[in-house]
């Protein structure tokens, strides 16, 4: 009899090199592009907000893991860092640091750990953090500063969406695309978000169906309203480029944990969310609807997952 002992485990015996850590930290890496936009347009302060927010998220996660008796090392898997940075990117450029830290901690504790930690949350934690800050500090969360390239005396303080909604001022597409507009630190440059998002799509971490169906849905429903009354409602391109839609489409609605698991489900999900964006932007008291649209579809996710189950090979559907 041979004396050697061998590992017994179920098949398969080979695995990819992929890991949750790699997925998360690569996503953090892709955030360099929108983050670079924030620095370019608003200076280094937003970087500080991102840093503080990310640290706060990780610390909150560590404390909660400890209290829940879980492996504290999980706080470094990268997911909390993503939440922290994403939250910071949705905040105004000159946001108070302690408020950002509080928002990040709230996001981790209430939107993630209370549900059971990574993979278990129903809502996008970063957006819950932002919703919390909007309710807790309504003034700070809607106080915008001009980019470094806009003369302060010409600055009205309004974001492109607000400018249109309340004053019917249309911001030039060029500024919207490159990002020389007022708004949240990381949402202004459609171009840079697109670069980060495309990297994630190419890497296979984001299903293109989510951003595509979401954006096209906004364009479609926004377009219908524009055709009905072009003086009152903005055109589809403005809808796409202004506000937080790009950031939401590539970094928020695409959150693996809170989005549907099937290709068909993702399309349905994006369409519903896009409809909600237009509804909120045009008919509510808020100029922007990305955050609420995603939080609302988050609740529909389990239902969509059931609705859009793929056909099993050999299954005959009635």
């Amino acid at each position, binding site marked *: 009899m041979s004396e050697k002992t*061998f590992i*017994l485990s179920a*098949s398969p*015996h080979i695995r990819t090199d992929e890991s949750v850590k790699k997925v998360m930290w690569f996503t953090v890496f892709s955030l360099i592009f929108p983050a670079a936009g924030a620095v370019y347009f608003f200076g280094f302060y937003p970087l500080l907000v991102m840093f503080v927010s990310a640290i706060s998220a990780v610390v909150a996660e560590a404390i909660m893991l400890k209290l829940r008796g879980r492996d504290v090392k999980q706080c470094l898997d990268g997911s909390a860092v993503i939440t922290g940075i994403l939250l910071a990117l949705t905040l105004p450029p000159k946001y108070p640091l302690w408020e950002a830290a509080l928002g990040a901690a709230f996001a981790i504790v209430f939107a993630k750990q209370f549900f059971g930690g*990574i*993979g278990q949350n129903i809502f996008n934690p970063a957006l819950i953090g932002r919703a919390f800050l909007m309710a807790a500090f309504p003034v700070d969360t809607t106080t915008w500063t001009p980019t470094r390239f806009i003369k302060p005396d010409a600055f009205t303080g309004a974001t492109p969406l607000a400018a249109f909604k309340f004053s019917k001022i249309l911001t030039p597409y060029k500024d919207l695309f490159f990002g020389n507009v007022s708004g949240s630190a990381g949402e202004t440059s459609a171009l840079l978000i697109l670069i980060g998002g495309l990297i994630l799509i190419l890497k*296979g971490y984001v299903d293109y169906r989510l951003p595509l169906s979401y954006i096209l849905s906004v364009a479609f429903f926004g377009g219908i309203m524009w055709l009905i009354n072009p003086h009152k409602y903005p055109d589809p391109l403005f809808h796409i480029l202004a506000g937080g839609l790009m950031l939401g489409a590539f970094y928020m609605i695409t959150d693996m944990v809170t989005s549907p*698991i099937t290709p068909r489900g993702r399309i349905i999900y994006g369409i519903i969310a896009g409809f909600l964006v237009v509804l909120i932007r045009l008919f509510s008291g808020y100029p922007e609807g990305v955050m609420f649209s995603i939080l609302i579809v988050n609740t529909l996710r389990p239902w969509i997952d059931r609705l859009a189950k*793929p056909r099993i090979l*050999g299954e005959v559907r009635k």
Partner: protein
Amino acid sequence: MVKYTFRGGIHPPYNKWTTSKPIVRLEVPQTLYLPLIQHTGKPAKPLVKRGDEVKKGQKIAEADGYISAAIHAPTSGKVKTIIEHPHPVLLTSYPAIVIEADGKDEWFEEPKERPNWQESSPEEIVNAVREAGIVGLGGAAFPTHVKLSPPKEKPIDTVIINGAECEPFLTADDRILQERPTDVLWGAFLIKRALNASKVYIAIEDNKPEAIKKVSEVLKDFEGFELKVVKTKYPEGAEKQLIKALTGREVPRGGLPMDVGCLVQNVQTSLAIYEAVGFGKPLIERVTTLSGDGVKGSGNYLIRIGTRFQDVVDMTGGMTEDVVKVINGGPMMGIAQYTLEVPVIKGTSGILLFTKKYAKTFVEYNCIRCSKCVDVCPMGLLPLMLVDYIKAKRFVEAKEKYGLLDCIECGSCAFVCPSRINHVQWIKYGKQELRRLG
């Protein structure tokens, strides 16, 4: 050229290191262990007892009932005992006939070409196959005579010879196609004849150019035969996926290939059928790939059934000190072994020895719902939901809502999972619990 394929699947590193290594006949070991069960169905009934002299090819155990298969002595010698011995599939010990070789390797009845075997009737073919103890040699080991006798109301028009060999590392079928293409096609000819089928497809993955070339050279002599090059993708060689890829037909849930007029046979099974019907040779040896980074003499070996893994390793140059895992079969669906005492049985398509470099172990992390498992599932299942339901012990719902029993356990989901979740292990457990519940 059109390349056929299916939905889902993965591209693991193929590591077909032994593609260009010709089949080498391995010597007969001192002692051979023949488990009474080497097939799906009822165990065989021994026909010999301790001390009996046996000759090579002599039937030493007979099929017990319809779904069962006979076993033959792989060499001449003496029955040492019938004892429980480690089994490479059951992962426990099981009664095996132990034969002490006498070194003479004398035939009981030497295989000779039978006159006019090409004109054998379906009954003669099925009988010869049953007498030879042939089972599916791709790994599932279902008795072949049963597959060749479908009920009348399920006529079969299409025979598929499965040379996809989509499991990484394995090259036995590839080598057989390269070295004996005509014999494999004759086997397919006999299968077609037994079933009165009209078409034969030879399916080969496009990463085996040599095999494709050799088969296409001899194919024209066979009427109704067609070579189908399939995309290199795992699990291309899974029965249902292959049928779908080649014919567009879908085996109904819980059904069999014959429900859609198809029959899939592995390359080596086809070869065995040719040898049994044409020459009266029973199944006493098979080609097995020995590979993995812990093996010194990797290659494709013609091995007598009953040869212990230990003997295979010793006779081919040994293994490295740091082998930590031994697998019967391929790395995706093969079975990890706890000892090298296990013998090569009819279904042993490969023996893999891995060091830590390949045999990595992981701790499961929380599922992050990335849905990679959904994207790759060739059956259209939701592996993450199955695991959720099984963990919650909701087995019946897992079956009814999420198709637990449709899973073919190919392991694609577990392969791609960034959380290193052992889907297949959970699913096997779920199926077992379901059986227990009745």
